[in-house]
């Protein structure tokens, strides 16, 4: 299949990022926009904008029929789903198939398999790859609680249909187990429309390490090395980096080979990520496979110098892998920060507002994948992630130093973001030492959200002096009275 025209069925920074590559490949581009959505960077890049509507903006982006119809109407050859929304929706892939439109990603079958966490685990286990001790509700719903108990504490409850950390709950003691199961079930129903669960042994002080893979759908799979994503808040990744400071080269080779093995087992096509739990003792267990481009893919691009979206499009066009495994090397170190509209000082409450001023950091090794423009309004309609900041350096220390400078230079005014919080993480001695686990942010919460230096006087002075009405009122006071001040006789 020749891709002459591509629809990006997504929005925000990822839509812009995909469109940029597509354009350099000589592909005509189009992107979605909800009727009430403020234009973002993607809408400035795309050749064509397709308006969609729905009960809510998110519902519109999930509306398969509407999007497929739009894709047909404007005559695209393929759809790139980005991440989130319909990226791992097998029904969407089937609908596109039926419409004769290509999908930049794996087959519907692979998506369905890997999308069902329970089936995916069983599949991986059967082929001899490591998984953590677990109990699956569907195996025998009647004995689920008992079998969960047998896994041992602490354990983790997960929705079978889940992803992105939603609905996951850690249970430390037996007394809480049944109540937590019910809570997790409700959350699963709410987020995924599917209340089925499974539990697995919760590895203490685990690290989250994942491997970027790419398959041609004909049995050829390569990896682009690992990423470490242990800096997570409530199972949401916040900072990702590569290479992982935790791995020796032997372990790195082993984990990457395992990932390639799993992808090869499903005859994987396109870009995917195999996620592992990495225990302090060096053991690692299959967690899940994400059958899409990940949010954090830019760190891999920075160290390998390979444009993964270009690779995706290449494979989607049926042209096989571009690189042999030996050609894919890690050079230096890269880190990514997720810049989110949230208020770290107010328990990470989502922040809203109009973006009044944006100034992106510049400099060697700095990359910004942004989804915002000045003048756009940040609402709670969509995910709070506004942009990603990526820094690359010769080694980890240099990358962190570059990142610290970049995040402090990143000016986003008008909506509160987590840049200060991210900077606090970068400055933390444990982060600098690479001594982290997925519990790091919770353990260090007090330090990381501690109020910084008291700058109240500066803020007050700057606010007062930039308040035109206030200054005008003061200026209108005759000079004599200003000089006398609050004199009393």
């Amino acid at each position, binding site marked *: 299949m020749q891709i002459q025209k591509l629809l990006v069925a997504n929005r925000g920074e990822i839509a812009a990022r995909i469109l940029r590559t597509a354009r350099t490949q000589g592909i005509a581009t189009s992107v979605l926009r909800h009727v009430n959505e403020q234009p973002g960077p993607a809408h400035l890049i795309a050749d064509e904008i397709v308006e969609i509507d729905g009960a809510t903006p998110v519902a519109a982006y999930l509306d398969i029929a509407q999007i497929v119809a739009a894709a047909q109407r404007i005559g695209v050859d393929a759809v790139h789903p980005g991440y989130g929304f319909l990226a791992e929706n097998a029904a969407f892939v089937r609908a596109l198939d039926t419409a004769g439109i290509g999908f930049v990603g794996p087959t519907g079958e692979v998506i369905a398999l890997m999308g069902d966490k329970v089936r995916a685990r069983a599949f991986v286990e059967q082929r001899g790859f490591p998984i953590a001790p677990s109990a699956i509700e569907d195996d025998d719903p009647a004995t689920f609680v008992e079998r969960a108990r047998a896994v041992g504490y602490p354990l983790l409850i997960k929705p079978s249909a889940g992803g992105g950390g939603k609905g996951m709950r850690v249970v430390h003691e037996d007394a809480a187990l049944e109540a937590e199961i019910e809570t997790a079930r409700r959350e699963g129903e709410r987020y995924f429309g599917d209340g089925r669960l499974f539990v697995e042994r919760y590895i203490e002080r685990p690290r989250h390490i994942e491997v970027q893979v790419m398959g041609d759908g004909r049995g050829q799979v390569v990896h682009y090395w690992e990423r470490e994503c242990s800096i997570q808040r409530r199972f949401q990744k916040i900072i990702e980096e590569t290479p992982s400071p935790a791995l020796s080269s032997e372990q790195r080779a082993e984990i990457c080979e395992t990932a390639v093995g799993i992808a090869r087992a499903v005859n994987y096509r396109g870009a995917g990520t195999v996620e592992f739990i990495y225990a302090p003792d060096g053991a690692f267990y299959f967690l899940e496979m994400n059958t899409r481009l990940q949010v954090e893919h830019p760190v891999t691009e920075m160290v390998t110098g390979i444009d993964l979206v270009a690779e995706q499009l290449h494979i989607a066009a049926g042209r096989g892998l571009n690189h042999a495994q030996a050609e894919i090397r890690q050079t230096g170190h890269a880190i990514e920060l997720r810049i989110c509209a949230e208020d770290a*000082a107010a328990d990470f409450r989502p922040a809203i507002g109009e973006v*009044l001023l944006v100034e992106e950091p510049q400099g060697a090794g700095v990359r910004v994948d942004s989804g915002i423009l000045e003048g756009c309004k940040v609402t709670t309609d969509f995910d709070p992630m506004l942009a990603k900041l990526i820094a690359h350096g010769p080694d980890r220390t240099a990358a962190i130093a570059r990142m610290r400078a970049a995040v402090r230079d990143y*000016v986003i005014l*008008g909506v509160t973001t987590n840049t200060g919080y991210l900077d606090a993480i970068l400055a933390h001695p444990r982060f600098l030492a690479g001594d982290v686990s997925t519990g790091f942010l919770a353990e260090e919460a007090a330090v990381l959200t501690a109020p910084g230096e008291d700058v109240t006087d*500066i803020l007050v*002075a*700057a606010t007062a*002096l930039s*308040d035109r009405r206030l200054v005008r009122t003061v200026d209108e006071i005759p000079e004599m009275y200003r000089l006398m001040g609050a004199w009393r006789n």
Partner: protein
Amino acid sequence: MRRILEIGNGEIPIWLAHTGKGYVVHVRDRAVPCALTPSQGRGAYVLELEGRSIPLRMAVSETATFIHLYGRAYEVGRIDPADWLVEDGAGAGNDSIVAPMPGVVVSVAVGAGDRVEKGQMLLVIESMKLETSLSAPRGGVVAELPFAPGQGFGLKSVLVRLAPKEE
């Protein structure tokens, strides 16, 4: 020349004065001389404060000032005491709607116990051959609607009473 500034979770009353030599902001019982001059770049300024020159970036919205300072962004909410108090001023005086003239109740849109928003239509009256809708002077709970549709009322009759505002 007073403002109430919201920084973090705190409200800080301040006032600005000019001594003839320059501006002085009064904050937390201190008088802080200060000056603000634009510099290179959009929203870029240099703040002179107690002998220090502090570069910062700023954007000002209707109700808040956003400041990028020392690599962090801060939001400072601004409240003009007059606005704040006028909003707050919907006090005891707004507990009831008094008939502006004698007339008849045409229809009633809410019932006792209903929570209503400020400006929400409560009832329609007819007097002097004109229908008039009366709306809630503030948000709250309807305590009493003494007249049913069809009933007549006199000048200054209480047509709706809202439950007293909780402090």
